[in-house]
C-alpha cells in the first residue's frame, strides 16, 4: 500500500509562519495559459460564473443570465432565451452606459433575434418592441430605425418600411443628427431604393397598359415624382465613398431609361462589360450604342473607345455577333451619315487622332473596309506611318466579311 502512495507527490501551499515569506509554486505552462485573459468575440460577454464565485451580486447575476441567453440563442431555443431575457430586462434600471455594450443595446439585439425567430411572435409585436427600443437610446435611434426597416422589408411590408424611413429621415436631435450622419445617409439611400422600386412598378404598369391615354398621364406623373425623389437620394449617396453597387445600379437604371445620354452611361458600360454575365454585357452594348445616338457624344473619344473595345472583342470571339446586328439594325439607316461621313472623317483626323482611330474601327466593322470613313482615316494614318493605324487596317481587312453578317442582306444603298 505504501509504494503507490510514495509516488504520489502533491504539494499543498505552505506559508512559512514566522517570516511571512511565501514560497510560490512555479506555474506550469498549462496553468499559465489558463490564466491568460479569455478571447472575447465582439458581442459575447465573458464566460459565466460558477455559483461558487465570491460575491453573489446583481452584476454577476445578470452576467450569468446573459450567458444563459447566449447559449439558448446559439442552440435556437427561443422559448428558453425569452425566459431568461425576461429576467435580464431589469438591468435597464441600472443602465449606466459605461460598458462597451450596455444593457439597452443587449436587450435590443437579443430581443430582435428572439422576436424574429420565435414561432409565436407576430410582426405587430415586433414593431411594438422596436418602437420601445427606439426610445431607449438616442445614440442608437437611427440604427434601430434602419434595422426595423430591414426587418419590415424582409417581411414584405414595403409601405411600413417606407413610412419608417421617412419618419427617420425627418428626425432631428441636436448634436446627434450630425454625429449619426452615416445612418442618415443610409436611410436616404434606402428610401431612394424604395422610390426606385415604386418607379419601376409604375413603369411596368405603364408599359403594360400601352396607349391608354388618360390613365397614362396620372401614372406617368407619379412615375416622374418617384424618379425625382429617387434620383436625388441616390445621387447623394454615390458621392460618398463606399460600396454602393445596388444603389448605383438602380440609379443608372432610372437614368438609362430617362436620360440615356447621361454621363454615367460610360461608366455603366464599362461596369457592364466587365460582368461575367452575358445579359449584362449585352446591356452594356445597348447602353453605349444608345449613348452615341446623341449628338453630345459624337466627339467623345472615351465613348467611342468603349464601343470599339466591345465590338472588337465580339468580333474576335466571333460570339454574339447577333447583338451587334440587333443594335445596328435600327441605326444603319442614319448612323453612317451621322457619324461616318467623309467630312467628319477629315475633321476627326485633323482634330483628334485617337477619336478617329476608334471611330474608324467601328466604321470598318460595321460598314466594311470600303466605307468612306474607314478608307480616309486608314489611308491618312498609314501615310503618317502611325503604327496603330496600320494595325487597324490589318484588323479590319482581316475581319471584313463580318460586316456582311452584321448588316444583314446586302442593300445597295448601304455600300458606297
Amino acid at each position, binding site marked *: *500500500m*505504501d509504494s*503507490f*502512495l510514495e509516488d*504520489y*507527490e*502533491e*504539494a*499543498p*501551499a*505552505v*506559508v*512559512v*509562519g514566522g517570516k*511571512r515569506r511565501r514560497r510560490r*509554486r512555479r506555474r506550469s505552462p498549462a*496553468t499559465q495559459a489558463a490564466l491568460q485573459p479569455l478571447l472575447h468575440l465582439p458581442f459575447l460577454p465573458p464566460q*459565466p460564473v460558477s*455559483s*461558487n464565485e*465570491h*460575491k*453573489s*451580486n*446583481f*452584476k454577476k*447575476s445578470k452576467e*450569468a*443570465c446573459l*450567458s*444563459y441567453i447566449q447559449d439558448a440563442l446559439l442552440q435556437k431555443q*427561443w*422559448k*428558453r432565451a*425569452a*425566459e*431568461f*431575457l*425576461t*429576467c435580464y*430586462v*431589469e438591468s*435597464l*434600471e*441600472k*443602465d*449606466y452606459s*459605461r460598458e462597451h455594450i450596455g444593457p439597452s443595446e443587449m*436587450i435590443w439585439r437579443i*430581443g430582435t433575434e*428572439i*422576436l424574429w425567430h420565435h414561432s*409565436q*411572435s407576430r410582426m405587430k*409585436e415586433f414593431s*411594438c*418592441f422596436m418602437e*420601445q427600443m427606439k*426610445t*431607449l437610446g438616442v445614440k442608437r435611434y437611427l440604427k434601430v430605425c434602419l434595422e426595423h426597416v430591414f426587418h419590415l422589408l424582409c417581411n414584405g411590408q414595403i409601405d411600413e418600411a417606407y413610412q419608417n424611413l421617412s419618419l427617420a429621415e425627418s428626425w432631428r436631435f441636436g448634436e446627434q443628427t450630425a454625429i449619426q450622419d452615416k445612418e442618415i445617409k443610409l436611410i436616404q439611400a434606402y428610401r431612394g431604393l424604395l422610390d426606385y422600386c415604386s418607379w419601376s412598378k409604375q413603369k411596368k404598369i405603364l408599359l403594360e397598359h400601352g396607349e391608354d391615354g388618360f390613365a397614362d398621364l396620372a401614372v406617368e406623373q407619379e412615375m416622374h415624382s418617384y424618379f425625382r425623389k429617387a434620383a436625388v437620394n441616390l445621387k447623394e449617396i454615390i458621392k460618398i465613398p463606399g460600396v454602393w453597387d445596388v444603389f448605383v445600379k438602380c440609379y443608372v437604371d432610372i437614368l438609362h431609361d430617362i436620360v440615356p445620354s447621361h454621363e454615367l452611361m460610360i461608366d455603366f458600360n464599362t461596369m457592364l462589360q466587365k460582368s461575367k454575365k452575358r445579359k449584362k454585357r449585352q446591356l452594356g452594348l445597348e447602353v453605349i450604342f444608345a449613348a452615341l445616338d446623341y449628338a453630345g457624344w459624337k466627339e467623345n473619344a472615351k465613348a467611342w473607345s468603349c464601343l470599339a473595345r466591345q465590338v472588337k472583342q465580339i468580333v474576335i470571339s466571333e460570339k454574339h455577333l447577333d447583338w451587334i446586328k440587333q443594335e445596328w439594325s435600327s441605326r444603319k439607316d442614319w448612323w453612317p451619315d451621322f457619324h461616318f461621313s467623309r467630312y467628319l472623317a477629315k475633321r476627326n483626323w485633323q482634330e483628334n487622332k485617337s477619336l478617329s482611330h476608334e471611330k474608324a474601327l467601328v466604321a470598318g466593322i460595321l460598314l466594311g473596309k470600303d466605307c468612306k470613313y474607314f478608307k480616309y482615316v486608314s489611308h491618312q494614318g498609314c501615310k503618317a506611318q502611325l503604327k496603330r493605324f496600320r494595325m487597324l487596317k490589318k484588323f479590319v481587312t482581316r475581319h471584313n466579311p463580318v460586316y456582311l453578317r452584321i448588316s444583314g442582306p446586302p442593300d445597295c444603298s448601304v455600300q458606297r
Partner: protein
Amino acid sequence: MDEEDTRDFNERCAQCSEVNWGLTDGGRFYCRSCHNVTERTREVVNTDFITNSRVQTISKGSKKQEKNDGGCEWYICEGFQLVLKKQVEALEALGVCPQMKDEILCNFWRCYLQKSKQAYCKRPAGETVKTLSVCESSTDVDSDPERPSLLHLLSLSESEGDLQTDCSFASSVSKVSESTSVYSGSVDGSLYLMKNQKEKLRMTMPMTLSFCYLALLWVREPITLSELLRFVVEGHIPYMNVFQHFPEKMKLCGLDLKIFCVESWPEYKEVFNKMHELAAFLDLPRFPDITESCFLHPDMLCMKYLMEANLPDELHNWTCRVVKKIGIGEVDFLTLTPGNKSTRKVKYDVLAAAVIVVVLKLLFLLDDHYEWLLSEFAEERNKNNTEGGPYFEFKKWYEVVKHSLDVEQKKLDEEKAKYLWRCEKPLFYSVKNKSKVLKRRQMVVNLQNQFGKLSGSVQRAEKPNPSSFQLSWSEENTDGSCFHGHSLKGVLQEKCGLLTVMNPDYWLCTVKLCNEKLCGHLAHYREVEFPQSYHFVLGLFSFLLRIQPSYIHDEVCMIEHRLFNKKLCKKLKYNTVLRKMKRPKTSSIKPI
C-alpha cells in the same frame, strides 16, 4: 383642548392686540377675538409612524416640518427596526419560539440603540443632526468646506459602488439648494454614512441578520447560520427589498437607498464576524450552554449532514470519536462567550461538515486511488454478502450523489441567474430623476410581459417550502440509491478483536497553519493542488452549506492539526512536501 395647546403662545394679535388664541384645523393659530388667522403653526409631535411601542424615546432635537408630499421625518434606526421586525416575524412563521421576538431580539436591539447612543440615553446622536440638516443652513452646498461633499458620502460604503454610479444627480450637486429631500428621505441619512464605523458599529443590512442569528443562538434554536442565510436567499426571510414594506409616510430616497438597498446576497463570513463584534459591543454575558443534546452540537449536526450527504449512519460513530478526541464537543469550546478573545469563534455548521470530511479521509484516504480500490474490494465482498445490509461502496455512492448534486447545482445556478432583484417600489435618488425612473420601470414591466408570454408554458417556480434538508434520500427506494443503512464492514478490518480502518495512511491538507489574523485564513485552498475526491467532498458540503469550499478546508486543517498535534510537533519541517502520516497503533479508533 385649545387652551392647552395654545398655552405657550403668548404673542399679541397683530389686529386686535389681544392674547386669545385658538387652533384651526390646519394647526394654525387664530385670534379668537378678531378671527385673524396667522401663519404660525403649532409644533406637532407626530407619533403615528412609530409602529411599535418598543422605541419609546427617540429625542427629536430639530424642528419638525411636515413635508409637502405627505412624508414624515424618520430616522435610519427606525428603518432598521422595521426590518428586524419583519425578519423576526418571518422566523416566527418558520417555527421559531415566540420569545425570540419580544424578549430577546428586542432587548438586544434596545441595548444596541443605547450603546450606540441613538436612543435610550440622555443626549442621543440625533441632536447633532441639526448642524447637518440642509434646510437650516446655507443654500450653496459647495461653499461650506466642512460639510462633506455628496460624492464623498457616496463613496463611503462597503458596497461595490453600484448604487454610487446610479446617482445621476451627483453631478448636479452644485445646483442643489435648500431642499433636504435630495440628500435623504430620512433625517440622518447623510450623518449615518459619515459616521466612523469602527467607533459605534454602524448598522447595516447584513448586520440585521447578525442580530437575528445572535438571538437564535441565545435560544439555541435548531437553525444554523448557513441555513438562515439560505432561507434569506430563498426568500423566506425578508432581506433584499424589505424597504418596500415601510409605511407610506417613510419616504425613501437619496442616501437612504445606499443604506437599505443591498445588491448582493449576505456573505457567511461577514454576517458571522459582525455577529461576534456585536456580541462584544453589547457586552453580552456568556450565552446559554451548548450541550450534547443541543442541535448545534457537532454530534447532532454531523448526524444531520451525514443523512443529507447520503452517507452511512455508521459513520456517526467515527465522527463522535473524532469530536471527542480533539475536544470540540466541550461545552466551553462551543458556547459563545463574547469578549473572550482567547476562545475560537465556532462556526457550528462548518465545523460539523469538516469533521465528516476528516472522517472520510481517515476511512477512504481520498487520494484519488485508494478509495476506488477499497470500493472494488467492498464490491467483491458484497457479492458474497448474503446477510445483513450491503457494504458501502464509495464508487456507487459517488455516482449517485454526484448525479443529484449536479442536477441541484444546475438548478441553483439557473435560479441565481433568473433572480429578479428589483421590486415594485420605485427607487429614486432625487425628485429630479423620479420621472425617468418611473418611465424605465414601466418599460421594464412591459418588456417582461412581452417576453414572459413568449417563454411558453414555463412558469416561474413557486417559492419552495422552507426545508431543512436540500437533498433527501429515501430508504424505501428500491434502486439502492440510499446509503444510510449501508455497513462500513466492507472497509474495516478486524485486528485484535477490534474493528479498525484498513487504511493505514493519512495526508494532511497543510503542514503548517497560517496566521489567521494576518491573512484571514488558516490555509489556502486551490483546487488543482488537491485530489479530485477531496475536492468533490468539499464541493458537496459547500453546496449544502452554500459557502466557499475554502471555508470548509480551513476547518479541516484546524481539525487535522488538533488530531495529529503530537506528531506534527515532532516532524515539522519547512518544506512543501506531502506528509504521510502513519497512525500509531495505539491510537487506532476502537468500535463501540
